[in-house]
C-alpha cells in the first residue's frame, strides 16, 4: 500500500539528487578559476588523492594483470592463439579495465576520504568559518579536490595499466613460456595509441571528475552529524560506482 508513494518519492529524491549535483557541478566549474589562486591546495590534494592511492592501485593492477594473463592464456590456448595474450590484455586494460577498476578503487580509497573530510568540515563549522572569513569553500576546498581527481585519475590508471601489463607478462611469458617477442610484437601490432591508450586516458579523466564530484557533493551537502557523514560516505561509493559504470557505457557507446 505504501509502495507507490514510497517509489514516487524515491524517484523524486533521485531526480532531486541529480539536479542538485548538476547545479553543484556548475558552481564548482565556476569556482575553478578562483581556485587557481589556491593552486598549492590542488597540489596538496593531488598528493592526498593520487599519491596516497598508489599502493592500492599498484597492488590491484598487478593482481589484475596476473589473473588476466592466466585466464587468457588458458582460454586462448583452446583456439591456438596464445600469441594474442598480450594484445587482448592490453586492449582490455586500456579501453575498459584500467579506467573502470581504477575509478572504483579510487572511489573507495580517495572518494570516501574526501567525503568524510568535507563532511567533518561541514559538521564542525569549518566551511561556515571559511565563508565568514570571506574565503569561498567551493574555491578553496571543493575545486582543488575536483581538479586533483581529474589530474590524478589518468595517471593512476596508467600506473595501474603498466603494472597489469607487467603482471600478465610475468604469467604468460615468465611462467607459462609464451615467447617474449611474440607477446610484445602482437601487442604493438594491434594496439593503437589514439583509439586505445588515449581513449582510456580521456575516460579516466572523466571518471576522476565523476568520482570527485560525487564525493565532494556528498561531503558538502551532508547532514552535520556523525551519522550524516557516515551515510554520505556510503552514498559516495554507491553513487560514484554506479555513475562511473553508466557513464562508461555511454562513452563507449557514443564516443568510440
Amino acid at each position, binding site marked *: 500500500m505504501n509502495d507507490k508513494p514510497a517509489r514516487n518519492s524515491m524517484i523524486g529524491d533521485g531526480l532531486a539528487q541529480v539536479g542538485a549535483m548538476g547545479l553543484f557541478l556548475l558552481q564548482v566549474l565556476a569556482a575553478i578559476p578562483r581556485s587557481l589562486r589556491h593552486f598549492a591546495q590542488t597540489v596538496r590534494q593531488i598528493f592526498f588523492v593520487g599519491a596516497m592511492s598508489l599502493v592500492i592501485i599498484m597492488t590491484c593492477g598487478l593482481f589484475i594483470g596476473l589473473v588476466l594473463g592466466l585466464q587468457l592464456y588458458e582460454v586462448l590456448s583452446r583456439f591456438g592463439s596464445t600469441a594474442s595474450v598480450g594484445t587482448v590484455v592490453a586492449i582490455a586494460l586500456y579501453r575498459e579495465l584500467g579506467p573502470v577498476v581504477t575509478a572504483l578503487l579510487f572511489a573507495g580509497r580517495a572518494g570516501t576520504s574526501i567525503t568524510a573530510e568535507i563532511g567533518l568540515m561541514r559538521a564542525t563549522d569549518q566551511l561556515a568559518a571559511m565563508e565568514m572569513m570571506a574565503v569561498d569553500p567551493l574555491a578553496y576546498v571543493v575545486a582543488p579536490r575536483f581538479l586533483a581527481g581529474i589530474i590524478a585519475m589518468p595517471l593512476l590508471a596508467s600506473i595501474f595499466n603498466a603494472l597489469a601489463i607487467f603482471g600478465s607478462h610475468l604469467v604468460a611469458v615468465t611462467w607459462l613460456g609464451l615467447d617474449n617477442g611474440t607477446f610484445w610484437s*602482437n*601487442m604493438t601490432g594491434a594496439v593503437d595509441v589514439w583509439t586505445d591508450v588515449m581513449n582510456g586516458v580521456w575516460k579516466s579523466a572523466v571518471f576522476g571528475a565523476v568520482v570527485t564530484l560525487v564525493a565532494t557533493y556528498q561531503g558538502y551537502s551532508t547532514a552535520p552529524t556523525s551519522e550524516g557523514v557516515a551515510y554520505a560516505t556510503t552514498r559516495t561509493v554507491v553513487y560514484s560506482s554506479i555513475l562511473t559504470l553508466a557513464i562508461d557505457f555511454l562513452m563507449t557507446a557514443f564516443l568510440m
Partner: protein
Amino acid sequence: MTQRRSHQIGTGLFIVLGFAALGYLATQTTSLANYRQGPTYALKARFTNVGQLKLRAPVKIAGVRIGSVSDIQLEPDRLEALVTLAIDKRFNQLPDDSAAAVFTSGLLGDQYVALKPGGSPDLFKDGDEIILTQSSMQLEELIGKYLVGSGDSPAKKPEQAPSPNPEPETR
C-alpha cells in the same frame, strides 16, 4: 613547512611516475613502437592476393621481425597488389632470390610477410623487387578445397571440421 615540502616531493614523484607509465604504455606497447626503427631500405613484391595484410604489418625472416609493410597498392595494369616493404638497414644481406609470402600468425592472428632466404650470391638492393611470391592463404579457399577435393564423404566432414569435440572419442 617541512610537511608541505614532503607533500610537494610526493606529488612530484607521483606525477613523474604517472607520466612515465603513460609514456611507456603509449610508446612501447602500441603500434608507435614499430615506428621506432633505424634507417630502412625498400623492397617491392607483387601478390595476387594480400588477404588482410595491413600497413605496418611486420616483415619477418625465420620469425624475427626485420621490417614492416610500408605501402600496399593495386597495380592498375596487372591487377595485382604491389606491396612495398621497409627493411631495416641492418639486414642488408638478403640474397636476391629470396621468396616472400603472406602468412597468418596462428589460426586467427594478424597477417605478416615472411621472407624465405634463397641461395643466390647476389644481394637485394634498395628498390629491388622480390620475384618469388606466394599469396595469402584464404581460410575460406582452404576449406572449400578441402570439402570439394578430399573425396569420399563431403557431408560428414563439415560436422567434424569446425567442432573439436568428437576428437577425444576417436582417439
